[in-house]
């Protein structure tokens, strides 16, 4: 199974935004609560559109909400070469 390299700080951002619930965030983004749960647990990588919508809800640029784990990716590449 491929590992999810996209990380996010949605849990922390929800807490900082008056402890916004997953349901409230889901309604603002236009997805189901289960999708927010899956994104938060990093078991599902959202589309670019949903990622931008989440970032917009928190009023932050995309890269402050989502990050890409480049170190692990590079290490994997090195291991594959070996």
């Amino acid at each position, binding site marked *: 199974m491929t590992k999810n390299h996209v990380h996010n700080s949605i849990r922390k951002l929800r807490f900082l935004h008056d402890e916004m619930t997953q349901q409230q965030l889901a309604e603002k983004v236009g*997805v*189901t609560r*289960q*999708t927010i749960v*899956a994104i938060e647990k990093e078991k599902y990588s959202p589309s670019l559109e*949903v990622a931008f919508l989440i970032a917009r809800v928190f009023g932050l640029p995309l890269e402050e909400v989502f990050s890409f784990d480049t170190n692990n990716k590079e290490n994997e590449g090195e291991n594959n070469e070996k």
Partner: protein
Amino acid sequence: MTYYSKKAIVSGISSIAVFIFFYLDVMEKTASLSVGSFASLKQWGMFFIYLLLAEIAVKIIVMIIFNMINTMITRESEPTIVDERDQLIELKAVRNFCFTFAAGFFLAMSALALNQPMNVMFLILAFSFITAGTILEASYVFYYEREA
């Protein structure tokens, strides 16, 4: 467990129940007929038509009852939004259904090519239909629970 997982389990169980009912019926009807006869083929044709119609009708009724019971117990109504993740899971589940049914169809045609009786082909088709249906529902449960 999510709403969709519970829905898939209920749907899968109802499909299997309907299949068993019609399968036993067609077995009983074709037992007295000679293999490959026109009457036997007609019974198999009727089996598939009735099975499909009954599957649709039973699924509608079961889903109405399921929604009522689920709302009463969990106070959670059917989700109104179908988002990108739901669509992705549906695509994966339908893909698994198609792969399984295609494999069953290939197997059924192979049975014909290997000079097996017509009944064997219909049996394989019938079982690939129910197996593919079960895999479809199991895929929903698997993908929803894995990412929940």
